[in-house]
């Protein structure tokens, strides 16, 4: 499989054309409809952009670092050419009046968005089963979930529709589906990529990242997307620059709490094998304790619903989105929201209303934010000794469709490995690390200190080569 830079070189030198790459991607997308990974295709706009790039090549003009590269965005990114639904009914026919900064930056380098992928509605979920338009199927075993919430983007990457796809990751929504489908998936340090033009979920942990089939492609896409944006006041001053493949011995800590008895044996086994490969490559690997991690999921399911209840208050059927028929304004709000949200959206909004209520605020929300400080301090202490921390990406391989849908708390446990770095804002990368005996993919998660994104990728690069 060619890397993005090889394909871009082929486009720039006339060995292939942007049109041919886009046509191939669209045809491949149409050949995998049974996975239900895509909610829309943007043929017309994509082909026009491809022809524009080919015309520049013919005219001998410069083309960008992603010239002619087809890509897919999760359908919570505002993008032209198709509606932005967030896989919800309330935004069913919402045609974005502007594009997300991340999409604009990719397009400025010549990349071409060919479609929008399925997700759990408003990114609330870990399996893409909460989509108002039906679940996405796993790329390796169609009876299993794609993971989530960025399930569609993971599956189109795994099935070679496009060389890369965008996702959002608030508590694991890129990393966990990357693990379930056998591709790379990165959640960068909080503040690396602008969220302007992306449907907000939980603003204190929302991040934007990507899926790709090799680490060089991940680095290139992140390098294009990263950077300060005046339209997102949380973006960090520019800091990210890819490093060469790592060549120095690192100190790596395997988090003990993530490889205990509650974790699937196949996952523990894959993690052990990855540790052996790290040692063989000259790294020192120790087991480390992070006991506060046991409380992280409870913190997350207090803080995140609180922020969701606030962020989703804007969907009321008034200025945009689907409006229910009603004779009073209160009815209009209530019915539009009841009909426009899926059950998991309602659960999270109502839990958020609960934990922010006077009388419960200190006991839940404030307690969770204090606990979050404990978690951040515990990570900081570990990173005084270790360069990188390691855990499985998820406690199990992809589970069956329908297996966890009746029990929301059980579904939340799928996020147990990925949520802690999110609360601390740390970069984390899911790396393919083998399969179960049935061939289901398993990923391991590399976690870095704040802003150590480039180190994680350089280590993954080294491990890809050894």
């Amino acid at each position, binding site marked *: 499989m060619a890397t993005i830079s090889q394909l871009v070189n082929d486009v720039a030198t006339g060995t292939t054309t942007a049109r041919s790459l886009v046509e191939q991607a669209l045809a491949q997308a149409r050949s995998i409809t049974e996975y239900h990974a895509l909610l829309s295709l943007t043929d017309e706009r994509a082909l026009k952009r491809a022809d524009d790039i080919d015309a520049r090549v013919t005219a001998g003009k410069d083309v960008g670092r992603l010239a002619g590269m087809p890509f897919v965005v999760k359908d919570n990114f505002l993008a032209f050419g198709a509606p932005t639904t967030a896989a919800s009914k309330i935004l069913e026919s919402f*045609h974005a009046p502007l594009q997300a900064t991340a999409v604009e930056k990719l397009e400025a380098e010549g990349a071409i968005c060919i479609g929008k992928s399925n997700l759990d509605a408003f990114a609330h979920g870990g399996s893409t089963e909460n989509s108002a338009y039906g679940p996405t199927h796993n790329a390796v075993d169609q009876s299993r979930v794609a993971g989530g919430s960025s399930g569609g983007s993971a599956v189109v990457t795994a099935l070679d529709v496009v060389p890369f796809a965008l996702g959002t990751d608030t508590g694991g929504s890129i990393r966990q589906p990357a693990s379930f489908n056998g591709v790379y998936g990165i959640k960068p340090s909080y*503040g690396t990529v602008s969220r302007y033009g992306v449907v907000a979920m939980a603003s204190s942990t929302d991040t934007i990242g990507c899926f790709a089939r090799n680490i060089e492609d991940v680095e290139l896409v992140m390098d294009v997307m990263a950077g300060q944006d005046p339209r997102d006041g949380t973006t960090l001053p520019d800091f990210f620059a890819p490093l060469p493949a790592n060549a120095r011995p690192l100190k790596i800590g395997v988090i003990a709490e993530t490889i205990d008895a509650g974790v699937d044996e196949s996952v523990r086994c894959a993690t052990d094998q990855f540790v052996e490969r790290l040692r063989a490559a000259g790294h020192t690997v120790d087991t480390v304790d992070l006991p506060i991690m046991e409380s992280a999921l409870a913190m997350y399911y207090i803080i995140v619903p609180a922020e969701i209840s606030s962020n989703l208050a804007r969907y009321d059927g008034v200025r945009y989105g*689907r409006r229910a028929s009603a004779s009073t304004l209160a009815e*209009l709000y209530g019915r539009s929201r009841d009909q426009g949200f899926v059950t998991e959206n309602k659960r999270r909004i109502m839990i958020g209303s609960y934990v922010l209520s006077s009388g419960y605020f200190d006991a839940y929300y404030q307690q969770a934010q204090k606990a979050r400080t404990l978690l951040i301090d515990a990570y900081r202490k570990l990173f005084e000794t270790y360069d990188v921390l390691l855990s499985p990406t998820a406690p199990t391989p992809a589970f069956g469709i329908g297996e966890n849908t009746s029990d929301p708390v059980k579904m939340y446990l799928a996020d147990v490995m990925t949520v802690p770095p999110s609360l601390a804002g740390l970069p984390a990368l899911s790396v393919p690390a083998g399969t179960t005996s049935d061939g289901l993919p398993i990923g391991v998660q590399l976690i870095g200190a704040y802003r150590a994104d480039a180190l994680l990728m350089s280590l993954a690069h080294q491990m890809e080569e050894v």
Partner: protein
Amino acid sequence: MSDISSDDVRHLAQLSSLSLDEQEVEDLRVDLGNILEYIGELSALDTQGMAPTYQVTGLQNVMRDDTIHHDIANREALLALAPASRDNQVEVPKVL
């Protein structure tokens, strides 16, 4: 399961601007009870003396000029998104 009544669910629904039907109230009563029980376990953690973390970047007071950018999206494009509009304004049911 955490103790949460159907009336509690209706109150939360009202706070959240959600018109739930009775079946939803019952289903959510069970789900929310289970979730609250799970997250309630956090109360056992000793956080005495800890300052809360609201954000992780360390950035403070990020300012920009207070200028209107007409290039982002124009009035017509935004009004076209409204489910109902009249005379260049978004139309809603009677408020008062």
